[in-house]
């Protein structure tokens, strides 16, 4: 049995404890577990692959930096997405103030980000539903949700979190999560009726 398998069997908490002891392989396992959900999370806000990956990277680095002082409270996923949500709020503020992530890093950055685009034609969001237009329609519909409903919807439906976890991340009562989720779904139903389902 390889070390990789061993790490895969560890819980998030155990991994974080190891990361705090400078075990970078434990961190690699956490990255493997959460890279897609995090990129996905930011993509739902930014609709921008570059930006989504930049943000996800920063969040994971924040987690790494904080690993020594990490004290398990709620689930690790709740902890992680709390950081992600706060990061996004900070990003919006800083963007409004005119700050941007280094252009140079975008130019000299990862070839794969650009290189993925042509290959991704077959696997772009929405393709499996009958075309790009469908994905675009869905994205626009999600965008049209009020921000409070969108936050709940993205966490609960897209990221698959429990209502209680979403309530913890957003700092709102459980009942509010439920009511916002209901409202979001009803609005999406009305917007997407006859278009995607």
């Amino acid at each position, binding site marked *: 049995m390889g070390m990789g398998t061993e790490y895969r069997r560890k819980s998030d908490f155990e991994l974080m404890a190891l990361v705090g002891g400078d075990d*970078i392989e434990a961190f690699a396992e956490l*990255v493997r577990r959460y890279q897609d959900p995090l990129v996905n999370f930011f993509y739902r806000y930014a609709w921008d692959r570059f930006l989504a990956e930049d943000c996800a990277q920063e969040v994971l680095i924040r987690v790494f930096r904080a690993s020594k002082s990490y004290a398990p409270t709620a689930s690790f996923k709740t902890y992680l997405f709390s950081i992600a949500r706060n990061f996004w709020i900070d990003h919006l503020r800083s963007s409004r103030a005119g700050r941007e992530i280094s252009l140079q890093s*975008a130019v*000299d950055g990862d070839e794969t980000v650009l290189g993925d685009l042509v290959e991704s034609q077959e696997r772009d*969001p929405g393709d499996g539903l009958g075309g790009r237009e469908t994905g675009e329609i869905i994205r626009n*519909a999600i965008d049209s949700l009020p921000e409070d409903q969108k936050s709940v919807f993205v966490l609960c439906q897209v990221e698959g979190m429990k*209502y209680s976890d979403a309530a913890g991340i957003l700092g709102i009562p459980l009942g509010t999560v439920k009511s916002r989720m209901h409202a979001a779904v009803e609005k999406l139903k009305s917007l997407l009726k006859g278009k995607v*389902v």
Partner: protein
Amino acid sequence: MGADCRYAKSLALEYIRGELDASAEDEVRTHISICPSCRAELDATISLLDAVRAGTGMKASSRFAERVLSRAAEIGEAPASDRLAALVAKPYRNIGEKATLLVAFLGHRFRKAPVWAAAVAVHAAAILVLACVYIPFKARDYMGTVPTSFVPGSAEPLAEDLPNYFGEGRGGEPDIDSGPMKIDGTHRIEPDPWTETGPEQVESGRTSGEPTPPWIPKRINSGISMVGAWFGFRSDEERKAKALEKFQGSETAPRVAAALKFLASRQESDGGFSADDPQAGSSYRIGITGLALLAFLGDGNSRSKGTYKSVVSSGMSFLMDNQDDETGLFGSSQGHYMYNQGIAASAVLECYGLEKAAGRAGPADLKESAARAVSFIASSVNETGGFGYTHLEKTGDTSVTAWQLNALALFLSLCPSEDQTAVRSAIKGVRRWIKSVTDGQGYVGYRAKGGVKTFPESMTAVGLYMNSVLLGNRGYVAKRQAELVSRKPPSSGAPADFYFWYYASCGLLKTDAAKFGEWNRLLKKAVATLQAEDGGFSRASAYGDVGGRVFTTAMAALTMEVYYRIG
């Protein structure tokens, strides 16, 4: 709806998500088993949520983990490279993941290596890769198994790609409705979220008083897929259906009409167009004809419809009559012929697209011509990923490359049933190219990074357009370039530069609606003072000394048409 239905409905989401306690779950399950209406609604909700989840997913790119780990390694207390090295040395999950870590390690270890050491490493890697590719290839050659289909003049065999253009795979017309991207402008007339949002939702913080068309998307997310919307709202009917006149302004349409009338008057008996300068005219007739045709196509004319359908028809015949049956090259292989190739191929493809958009299957002659032309283009990309003036020319050129990208992207969009392997590969090359010539400020070089000193915005506009085709309006580079380009707005106070204005207009339209609005306002103002009474534009503008009035007028028309030419 009874009380039970209301109760079931209120808990439907929690039921779907498995967040109900056992008794509540039983109650809902019992109810939906006997209530077809609630069952149907529940199923609809499940379908919707599945569609949303599937329709907007995004995974991290393949090098994401490598980047994160490399950065993390910089932060820890132990020497980063030691820790990465130890990690790589351990038995790991699979070869791919191990390779990722190995790349991270090597990148970190040698990040401060002297240039000569890096050069040696790169060359050694290149030799290894070439050996891996070349030796098996030569072995096949000796065994006589290498495909015999070559593009004449190509330094490399295109092998597997060619049979699909020239052989059995050619087949019938693609079904445009079942392709991955719709191109038949009509689908944009259908109600969709773009048209329902209205200008106020396009971009916040707009400073211009210029209205923005309601169809300009706030975001375009699918990169290449945006070329599926090449055909905007070109016809009067489409523009009227969209009430675009009020956004476009009443002055643009008559100016475009006058320019096209001027161009039509310059068409020669064989269907071609020439530059004023006889010398330039002979070597650039294909390119000048292509540009003039693009201007007509841009206003909704095709071979079968529009005021100038006969002009388009004879112009297309001219291009195809001058295309080599075997190589696909338009015109002669003299001079800077890749300009001609990219422009002419774009014109043929646009005409093909418009014919398809008009509800036809798409003329086979145009499609065959386009396929051959694009095959030549795809085989002409050089090792830097760019295109030069001639086939496989080692020195790339951003301006030439933009026209090839135009044709490649159109082909990718319009001919989904064709083998697009070579086209995709060429587009990947273009991405490498545009990245290699873009500097840290976002400026784009002509042949190399930082190579343009006097008017860097011009080539940056070309780069912006290329980025917008490749990436939609994503990424900081395009946003930065939009900022740079918009600092040099159209003005009648200096010699006109329609080539710059055209690319800037295209790029801004795709990237920044607010900037495009202001840009377009100034463009209309400048054009109003520059257009001559005969509808043409003076040759006393950028490149007018070579292309003459046909060139400047065609570019001016294309620039004015950007507003509705591409969606």
